[in-house]
Structures are given as C-alpha cells and as structure tokens.
C-alpha cells in the first residue's frame, strides 16, 4: 500500500512544480509590460517601454528618432517593428501589442482605423516619392522608367500589397508603361537589398531609400514620381499599453527636431 501512495504523492509534487513554473513564466510575460498610465492626482509621466510599428522605409530615421527620444526622456525605451505597412497593419488588427503605428500610406492606416484599432485621427508627418534605384555604376544601363518594360533586364518591384508597390503601379499607369519585373518583394527594403547586392539591374524604391543605401546604390529621379507621392500617417493605438509615452513619441516625430532628422534623410514635409 505504501508504494503506490509514495508514487502518487511524488507525481503530485512534480505536477505542482510544473504548474508553479508555468505560473512564474506567465508572470514574466506580463511583468515586461510598460508602466500603467498614471492614476489619481499624479501627472501622466512619459516613461517605460513604447513599441512602435513603422514602415520599412522609416528604418533609419525612426531608429535615430528613437534614440533621440530616449535621450530626451530618461526612463523610456523605444522598441521598433519595421516591415511592410500592410503586414504591420495586419499584425495590429490581430492584436499585436503596439503603442504607435507609422504607415507609408494612408490606405494601410485606414486598415487599422477601420477596425477601431486606432481611434485617434492619424496625422501626416512626411511625404515620400519613388526613385529608380540601380546598383553602383549602373551595370544594367537603366536610363529611365521605359527600361522597366525590357524583359531582358532584371527588375525588382514592391508587391502591390505594400505602399511602395501601390505607388509603383500608379507611376507605371501614368507613364503608360507595362513593367516586366522579375520579382515582387514584400517590402521596400527587400527590394533595396536586391539592388545593393547587384542581383537586379533596376528597381523602384523611395527616394529616401536610395539615400539610406549609401554608395552601393545610385538613384535616378523621374518626372512621374511627383504624381505618386505617398503620405506617411502616424497615430497612437486605441489600446496602447503605454498611451502617455506613445502620444509623446508621436509629438516628438511631428516636432521640429523630428522634422529635421526626417528631412535630412530626404523626406519631404507634408
């Protein structure tokens, strides 16, 4: 009789240990949350973690702005998730825990305002337009938009789902050119990588991306790009875990300081 009892109590003990370990793990999960909004008479404090979902084309500028924001507001930590705006919008609609969304096009911002994931009115903070990107030295001898119809040249474009792809489509329609792309990439940075590795002869990216890529990539501006300008809207989320800091970050991006960083990278003022 004693043996089964012993065994039973042992197994219960182990089960308890497993269960308590699970509890500890669960605790860790919520422990990482940012500070709750201040309550009572205390003034709302800008502190804690703030998570920003931003379009891939904002990678360099927002990383810089995040550091500046942290320096200006001690105790804050800005975390980024950069990607195609459409993918980010989808993640937000599925409940991704973010505080701020900066999209490369109003259409993707609308995806989240439609679902009431964002209830604030989004504000346009920059404009951007497309440029032709070619590898250093232009080995494919791309002269202009017309070369994108040449099936003999390797061409990368953004997929239509992402803002740079939608803008590209508009540009080609305006120019009455049927492009012959070899690949449709999931975000603008993926397109840029193909250019900087020399895998394609030409691609359409944002003007700012050409600048950010440094001397590996050369840019060619073209007239039609002026008619397909992308507005970049930013807003804090309705269920932002750290609403106070989220709003402070949005204001920071819209401030003169933020504008200086963005225009230095080649973004146009709204």
């Amino acid at each position, binding site marked *: 009789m004693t043996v089964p009892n012993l065994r039973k109590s042992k197994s219960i003990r182990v089960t308890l240990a*497993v269960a308590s370990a699970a509890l500890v793990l669960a605790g860790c999960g919520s422990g990482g949350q940012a500070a709750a909004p201040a309550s009572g008479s205390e003034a709302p404090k800008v502190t804690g973690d703030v998570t920003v979902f931003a379009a891939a084309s904002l990678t360099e500028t927002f990383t810089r702005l995040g550091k500046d924001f942290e320096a200006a507001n001690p105790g804050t930590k800005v975390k980024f998730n950069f990607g195609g705006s459409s993918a980010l919008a989808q993640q937000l609609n599925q409940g991704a825990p973010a505080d701020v969304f900066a999209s490369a096009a109003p259409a993707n911002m609308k995806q989240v305002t439609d679902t009431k994931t964002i209830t604030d009115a989004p504000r346009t903070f920059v404009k951007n337009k497309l440029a032709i990107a070619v590898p250093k030295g232009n080995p494919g001898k791309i002269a202009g938009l017309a070369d994108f119809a040449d099936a003999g040249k*390797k061409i990368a474009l953004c997929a239509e*789902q*992402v803002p740079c792809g939608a803008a590209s489509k508009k540009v080609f329609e305006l120019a009455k050119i049927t492009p012959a*792309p*070899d690949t*449709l*990439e999931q975000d603008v940075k993926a397109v840029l990588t193909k250019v900087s590795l*020399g*895998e394609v002869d030409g691609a359409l990216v944002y003007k700012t991306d050409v600048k950010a890529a440094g001397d590996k990539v050369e840019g060619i501006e073209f007239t039609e790009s002026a008619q397909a300008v992308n507005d970049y809207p930013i807003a804090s989320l309705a269920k932002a875990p750290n609403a106070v800091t989220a709003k402070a970050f949005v204001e920071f991006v819209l401030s003169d300081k933020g504008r200086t960083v963005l225009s230095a990278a080649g973004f146009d003022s709204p």
Partner: protein
Amino acid sequence: MTRNRVRGRLPVVLVLPAVLGLAFLLVPLAGLLVKTPWTSLSTLLSAEVGEALRLSLICASLATVLCLFLGIPLAWLLARSGLPGRGFLRALVTVPLVLPPVVGGVALLLVLGRRGLIGEHLDAWFGISLPFTTAGVVVAEAFVAMPFLVISVEGALRAADPRYEEAAATLGASKWLTFRRVTLPSVLPGVVAGAVLCWARALGEFGATITFAGNFPGETTTMPLAVYLALETDPDAAIVLSIVLLLVSVGVLAGLRDRWISGPT
C-alpha cells in the same frame, strides 16, 4: 504484468504535458479549419492558387530529388568512410537546420547570385542566373531541406549492421555494388522517412525562397509566399491557401505513411 496494468499506471506528470502538447499542436490547425470561409471557398480558389500549388509541388519534389542525389552519398560519407573530422563535418551539415532561412537565402545570393562568388562565373560563362527563377526556388528549398535527409539516412546507416556489407565484400562485391545491392536496400526505410521530411520541409519553405528566388507569380511564388502576401490584403484568401496546402501535404504524407513508413502501432 499485463498490458492493461501497465497502461493503468500512466503517470500524470507525463500525461498532462503530453495532452497539453497535443492541444498546442492541434488547436491552431483546428482554428484554421473553424475560420475557413467554406461557403466562399470556390470563389477564393483562383487560377493563381492552382498555379502556386502546382509550383510548390513541383519545386518541393525536384528539391527532394536533388537532396536524394547529393544527400545519400553525403550521409554514407559521414557514416561509413572513417574520414577524419567527421563529427565536425556532421555539425556543419546541420547548420542549415539552425540557420534562419532568410540568412540561408542571403548566403545563397552571395554565392550563387549574379554577383556572387560562383554565380558571377555561371552568369559570365554560361549565362545562367539562378535568382528569380524556378531553378532558384529548387536550390533554396534543397539547401534548407537537405540536412533532414542526411541526418535521417546517416542515422539509418549507423544503425544498420555492417556485417552484411562485410559479407558482401568477402564474396567479392565491389564497394559500389555493395552500396547499391546491400547497404541501400537495408536503409531504405530511413531514406524514405528522410525524403518525406525533406519534401515536407521544402514544401513549407518561405524565408530562403523569398530571399534568394524572389517572388513572381508562376515562376517563384510558391504557396507559402502566396499565403504571406495574401495575408496582408485578404486574410480569408490566405486561410484558403493554407487549407489547400495543409490538405495536400497531409494527404501526401498520409498516403506515404500507409505505403512506406509503418510506424510502430
């Protein structure tokens, strides 16, 4: 010590996590089935879906053939050759298993891309450029999937009794003949299991494919890529694509299992 009595003592400490584990694996799949817009299924099944599915099946199968062709000899080398530094070599072979597939794709671009170490010469001498082609998809999938085959076949080879090979050798068979007629048939279940794993991995490959082969419908857009892009605009279509891929792969794997892999029941 009857079977029943042994079964009666299933320890909670094992059963509880086992059930949780099962639920963890199956509930997301069930969720997919629940959320599937069955009524509008036929409208969402466009020609593009068929094209992506066809491309996925062809590429995964070709990648598996390529892996068999290169992977079985490699497994044999690791298991049988007595080569110095085999342990290190084995560790290297498994690197694609732990490498993020996107990094694998970048590595392939750096080597086989148009400006890559080898790709540069392929392009200059033969006019062959792998990125953005269906062949590139096969290469990317094979790169990611081959370790599964190699590990499976190598394990089978190490478990196989070398005395049969020795007997064949004493009867005058050459090493190649021994390999073909004795070694290979004895490890066939391992080869098939490895090939199935390899095929399944290739079928679901995403990161290396989109990085190395890009994304163009009909050429390089396999099902996982189509799912990813559809998810951004039309989640329903993405779910349908996933269901199609799931049904096809489960069907193929179940079919193979009945025929080839008789697991202990």
